[in-house]
């Protein structure tokens, strides 16, 4: 299981725009780099990222090999209600990781 870091406010005012920062450990092998024998190393990247707010999708990203190792994504959302922010990463070779944080909206 890849290590993921989420930075989101634990508390927010209703209607406030909150910033969410996500980071996940993954080497994002591009598939363009040659190994010692000159053959390219097969591609192994995270291809999709989805963020859901209480089960409803609020952000989705499609990643390509041009994303740096340990993909870092920052985006924003409106704090509408208390609940859970869930994050899901999927990628090559059956890679899958999930993470969630709670948010209290006053």
């Amino acid at each position: 299981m890849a290590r993921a870091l989420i930075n989101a406010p634990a508390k927010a005012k209703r209607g406030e725009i909150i910033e969410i920062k996500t980071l996940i450990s993954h080497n994002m092998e591009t598939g363009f780099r040659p190994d010692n024998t000159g053959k390219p190393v097969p591609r192994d990247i995270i291809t999709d990222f989805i963020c859901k707010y209480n089960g409803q999708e609020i952000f989705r990203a499609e990643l390509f090999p041009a994303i740096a190792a340990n993909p870092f994504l920052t985006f924003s959302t409106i704090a509408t209600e208390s609940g859970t922010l869930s994050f899901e990463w999927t990628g090559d070779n059956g890679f899958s990781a999930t993470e969630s944080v709670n948010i209290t909206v006053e």
Partner: protein
Amino acid sequence: MTRDDDMPQATRRRFLIETAALAGAVGIALPLAVKPASATPASMRAAIRKVVGEAPVNKGKVKIDVPPLIENGNAVPLTVSCESPMTADDHVKAIHVFAEKNPQPNVVSVQLGPRSGRATVSTRIRLADSQKIIAIAQMSDGSFWSNEAEVIVTLAACLEGV
């Protein structure tokens, strides 16, 4: 000087000229041969067409925040923002980023909605060369807006072996 002496001289001269031309050709061909696979402006345009279809792409509204000079192309901080009220009627649906000289023109595609609040996305990208980055935003009314940024990279990504 007899005519017999003339011939070898002409051959020698031609030989020298030809050698020089060959060396020049090799000199030009060699850098091309070792250059890694890279997307061309044409393949970037094709990738953009794949996203926008036949719709016209207007210039403006989008802002790319990227350092103009980068030491290490392996992790380049990139922020793309778009002017939009982000309401249900008028919001940014998606932002696509393309690079001209990376092995693959696509960099990242994100989908936003009125719940995003702000059309701003940050990430870290790889750049294989000094090049132009293009960001295209798709609005909820179906229009496309774009902007571009020139970046100089000192140490390129994805050239080193494992």
